[in-house]
């Protein structure tokens, strides 16, 4: 099995697509145990034969429809109308917009692209330095993976076999904490560095502006009510909610806003299908890797060693957090969720950590990885939109990272502290 893990890393470094690397490496471990290769299709098809997984392509499609349909643009207009006049208002409005868009789309890169395209140029116009504007979007877009719905959470839930609805529910409070702490940081930074033009309009004009933006965006604001309300009200399963939001976004884009032409649809469906396949094929072959891990009893062995090292869940979570931050810097988030979950989730349970809480820690931690160089999807996207180098983003990102890591520690430990106090 050690050979398989070593092979996995060699294949990763050679640039072999992660999905195939995850399929090839465990073959060595299967061979060691004389397990016939026919197990591969069996494991892969068992992983794919799941109604829950269908939520992933639906949320990806819905996100793309909302982007093409101008939903994100209308949310941005609303945010500008409401807060454009405050010092630091526009930058904090971008956090709020990201939070809203996160309740509609399941992914952080979609959030970065949708929100950043409108808001980065707008922030520059209001005299925010471009790197600061781009860093703001990159940091707040990670909420796309934390505030439900969330594609990484669906993957975690499938791999760790926990309830998606519970995981979604548990993501709301951490998402709000991260959102508000980012807003607080932005207000402080804008005040000290004098970012953002302050130009107070008369109250009447401001009210008219907000009302106009609300009229243009209220139908879009209903999406989270339908999706999240539907799931928590017990009306829909997550998969059904996802497909309903596809239908809603489709009607909004084609009939109400009329920004999507019917002729655009085949392309939108095709590109969403391809993005989904790229994600899901990793899930399938990761199942082979997880299978090899389990027949070699790797999680059990590691858990025993971990417990011999420390029996303190606080120390364990600290080690996990450090490990995941390192992993998140180099490996793409979904792939990381798929690789670490089958190993770490059983160990966490043996430390008495609630698997839902542990899932949130994993997701929040790996979401930070989307904002850290050298491999951070959000950084790639915002640097493309803002037309700056990733290097120039690093300085303004440092303070954001500091806040995100404090949030991560709070999210990791507060539930544990409460748990201990109540006992």
């Amino acid at each position, binding site marked *: 099995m050690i050979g398989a893990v070593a092979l996995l890393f060699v*294949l990763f*470094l*050679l*640039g*072999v*697509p992660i*999905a*195939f690397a995850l*399929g*090839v490496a465990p*073959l060595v471990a299967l061979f060691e145990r004389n397990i016939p*290769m*026919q197990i*591969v*299709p069996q494991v892969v*098809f068992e992983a*794919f*034969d799941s*109604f829950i997984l*269908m939520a*992933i*392509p*639906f949320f*990806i*499609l819905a*996100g793309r429809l909302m982007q093409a349909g101008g939903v994100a643009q209308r949310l941005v207009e609303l945010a500008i109308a409401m807060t454009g006049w405050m010092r630091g208002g526009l930058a904090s409005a971008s956090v709020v917009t990201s939070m809203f868009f996160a309740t509609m789309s399941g*992914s952080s*890169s979609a959030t970065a*692209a949708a929100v950043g395209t409108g808001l980065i140029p707008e922030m520059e116009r209001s005299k925010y330095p471009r790197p600061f504007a781009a860093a703001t979007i990159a940091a707040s877009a990670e909420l796309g*993976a934390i505030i439900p719905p969330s*594609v*990484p959470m669906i993957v975690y839930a499938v791999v760790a076999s926990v309830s998606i609805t519970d995981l979604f529910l548990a993501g709301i409070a951490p998402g709000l904490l991260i959102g508000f702490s980012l807003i607080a940081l932005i207000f402080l930074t804008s005040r000290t560095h004098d970012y953002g033009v302050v130009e107070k309009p008369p109250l009447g004009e401001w009210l008219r502006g907000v009302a106009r933006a609300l009229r243009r965006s209220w139908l879009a604001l209903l999406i989270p009510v339908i999706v999240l309300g539907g799931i928590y009200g017990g009306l829909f399963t997550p998969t*059904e909610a996802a*497909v*309903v939001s*596809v*239908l809603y976004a489709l009607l909004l884009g084609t009939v109400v806003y009329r920004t999507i032409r019917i002729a655009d649809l*085949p392309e*939108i*469906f*095709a*590109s*969403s*299908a*391809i*993005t*989904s*396949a*790229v994600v*899901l*094929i*990793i899930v399938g072959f990761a199942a082979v890797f997880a299978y090899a891990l389990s027949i070699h009893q790797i999680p059990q062995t590691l858990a025993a060693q971990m417990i011999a090292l420390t029996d303190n869940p606080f120390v364990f979570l600290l080690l996990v957090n450090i490990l995941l931050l390192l992993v998140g810097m*180099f490996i*793409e988030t*979904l792939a990381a969720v798929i690789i670490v979950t089958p190993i770490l989730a059983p160990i966490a349970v043996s430390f008495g950590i609630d698997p839902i809480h542990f899932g949130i820690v994993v997701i929040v931690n790996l979401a930070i990885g*989307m904002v850290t160089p*050298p*491999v951070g*999807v959000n950084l*790639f996207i915002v640097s493309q939109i803002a037309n700056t180098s990733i290097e120039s983003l690093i300085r303004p990102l440092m303070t954001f990272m500091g806040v995100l890591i404090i949030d991560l520690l709070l999210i990791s430990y507060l539930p544990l502290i409460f748990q201990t106090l109540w006992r």
Partner: protein
Amino acid sequence: MYFAVLNTINQGLRYVLGFLLFAMCLFALLQVTVRLFLNEIGFAVAVPWSEEVGRYAMIWMIFLGAAYAFGSGQMVSLQLLIGKLPLRWRTAADLVSIIVVVGFALLLVKVGLQATEFGWIEKSPVLQIDKALVYLAMPVSAALIVLNAGTRFFQAFLKRHCADPTDIMTPNDKAGS
């Protein structure tokens, strides 16, 4: 000739993929509609087959989509080390990577066909579809990957002559994460 045919196949795949996703949406919507509305107004109908067909459409979408994505270089991979290497070494790494993928794909063709063969005697629980029609997705996809690998192989050599090495380092389409 080889590339022209392959190009046509890949273009056709895009339409098939879009259609499969569209079909998945229809089946899932049908299920929601029936459960929420028809049952509400007294029609006690259930459509368990819509979920089953939806899942099978997804399986085909995943496998065909992966084959397409491999051909167009959209698969998620780690470019960290490769991107830093001199061009000559990068070509070498690309070639090794393609050979690994082809070997794996050939194995998938073999075991996938075996699974398909057993699938002719296995029926799906609701619709009694031959499971072979589902399992076939794996060998078909793997065969397409082998074909696409030919193009990638050719491109890897071309890259040695291209002027701007950054055009092959563009971040993959990772909109899912």
